């Protein structure tokens, strides 16, 4: 929970990790990839304020205490959503698996929402694993990493027929939030790695599912935005947008936010710190204080306190059926609820 100038913000950090990229977890023979991956992430951390930078050693493997302090003690987060990334070709126990995230999620059940993942290349066994994970962890969302390497394959797309079976299974199991990583990545080789056409097709075929495009398709926000305007069930996950641009490139941050607000709209944008790439504290404080820097931005949609409340938590709370304390809801919504209760046994409101 964050409070500033008398306004109360309920914070859902919809993109967090508890990874292990320490040397002893690197797969023999794949060390260069394991090393390259975490060093690349670490460079991204460098785009945040200097006082929030970590040593590479800490960044490779941070502790439970670090995470709990950075998210909940210092970071204002009410609910953190774990988004797994497996990368078992490079990390022996995986980089950031459902099981590893579950260590914390099971210990602090009120703090975390534990998403799982699937990979259509795992066939029937993968479907069974998905069912088991959902039964065990109560996951209502999955994180899909279409760029993941596996047995010589360097990735997959949501257009693959096998992927449809998994999406059908998600629908059946009530896993309604499909977070798709479309952002800085490595695959595919000849196609454009950030192509969002597969999300477009899946979102049309599965209207009951929500598709949250993580990293908003960066660096192809135009393709993402053109697609998102066509699909009512597509959302913009802001991880990397705030962390990577707000501090390092404030003018571009303002432009990217302006475009997202114009094309996608404030009801469909969700905050995610991408912890441990960046800590949430400075992102939340900065975003609450943020506005367009000058008149150059006058034809973008305005940013209000309500805009920020929605983005920082209320939108994600809706997607995950999180109950938000009444003081933290938008007054209009809270008022409506009170009114609805007030008139419940008299006349229905007009």
């Amino acid at each position, binding site marked *: 929970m964050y409070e500033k100038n008398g306004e109360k913000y309920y914070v859902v950090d919809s993109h967090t990790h508890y990874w292990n990229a320490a040397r002893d977890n690197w797969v023999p023979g794949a060390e260069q990839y394991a090393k390259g991956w975490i060093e690349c992430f670490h460079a991204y951390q460098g785009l945040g304020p200097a006082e929030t930078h970590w040593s590479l050693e800490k960044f490779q493997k941070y502790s439970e205490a670090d995470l709990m302090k950075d998210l909940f003690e210092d970071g204002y987060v009410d609910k953190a959503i774990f988004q797994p990334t497996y990368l078992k070709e490079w990390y022996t126990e995986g980089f950031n698996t459902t099981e590893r995230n579950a260590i914390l999620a099971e210990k602090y059940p009120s703090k975390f929402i534990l998403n799982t993942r699937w990979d259509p290349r795992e066939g029937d066994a993968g479907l069974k694993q998905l069912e088991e994970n959902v039964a065990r962890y109560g996951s209502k969302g999955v994180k899909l990493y279409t760029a993941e390497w596996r047995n010589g394959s360097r990735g997959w797309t949501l257009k693959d027929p096998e992927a449809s079976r998994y999406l059908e299974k998600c629908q059946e199991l009530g896993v309604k939030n499909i977070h798709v990583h479309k952002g800085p990545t490595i695959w595919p*080789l000849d196609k454009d790695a950030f192509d969002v056409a597969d999300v477009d097709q899946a979102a049309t075929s599965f209207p009951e599912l929500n598709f949250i495009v993580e990293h908003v398709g960066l660096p192809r926000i135009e393709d993402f935005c053109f697609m998102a305007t066509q699909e009512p069930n597509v959302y913009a996950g802001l991880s990397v947008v705030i962390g990577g641009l707000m501090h390092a490139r404030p003018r571009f941050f303002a432009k990217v936010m302006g475009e997202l607000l114009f094309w996608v709209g404030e009801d469909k944008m969700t905050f995610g710190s991408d912890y441990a790439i960046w800590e949430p504290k400075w992102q939340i404080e900065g975003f609450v204080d943020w506005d367009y820097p000058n008149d150059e931005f006058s034809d973008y949609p305005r940013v209000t306190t309500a805009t920020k409340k929605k983005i920082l938590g209320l939108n994600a709370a809706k997607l995950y059926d999180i109950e938000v304390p009444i003081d933290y809801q938008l007054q209009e919504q809270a008022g409506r609820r009170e009114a609805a209760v007030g008139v419940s046994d008299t006349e229905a409101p007009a």
Partner: protein
Amino acid sequence: MTDASRVLAALDTVRDPELDEPVTKLGFVASCTVSDNGVAEVRLRLPTFFCAPNFAFLMVADAYDAVSAVDGVTRTQVLLEDHFASDQINGGVAARAGFTQVFDGEAVDELGQLRSDFLRKAVMAGTDRVCRPLLTAGVAAEDLARMVLGEVPASGDLDRLRSRRTELGLPAGDDAPLLIDPATGAAIGVEALSLHLRRARITRVSLEANAVTCRDLFAQRYRSALANSEPVARFGVAT
């Protein structure tokens, strides 16, 4: 001009196809040397270990072609450093192999289509660069749809837009419409104007935001004082 400076000038024509900026200006040229007997060696480096291999391949291949065409260069070596696919790309380009041959089983298409897709984005971004000052100067939006390129005041941005349109085989002469669909070359009518300009703007924002993030990551990676638009790489002539 020394051989090395001619080679550098040739590298100015090599662009990151994704960012639509010269590799020299982005700081991607780590070194550039020419030996007494005309052997040119160029080393390239990129913002991350995992930068997309397709774009990396295009830059290495384009650099190879540009440098090979320089007078006095007898042999060319272009080496991409610190990249997960360095060996494959360097070897493939040196052997004049196509992309699908280099990444056999992992890639199904050559990169012409990808390059065209990004040139079309460059045309859209360039459209915003040319039109925004006109709008600021008081030109009505609907007049933009009636203008031809010859009516636009000369500028570097206009030259760049013409050049990208020419590369795509799109009309770029004085009598060509200012606003065209980069996929078909058809003029944009007044009815489609507003959306077209919005699309041009976001494409420019996207390209430029991507470019600054690449610069920032590059600076993080190499800890060099990469100024906003200045090359930081060191160059020399091999002795």
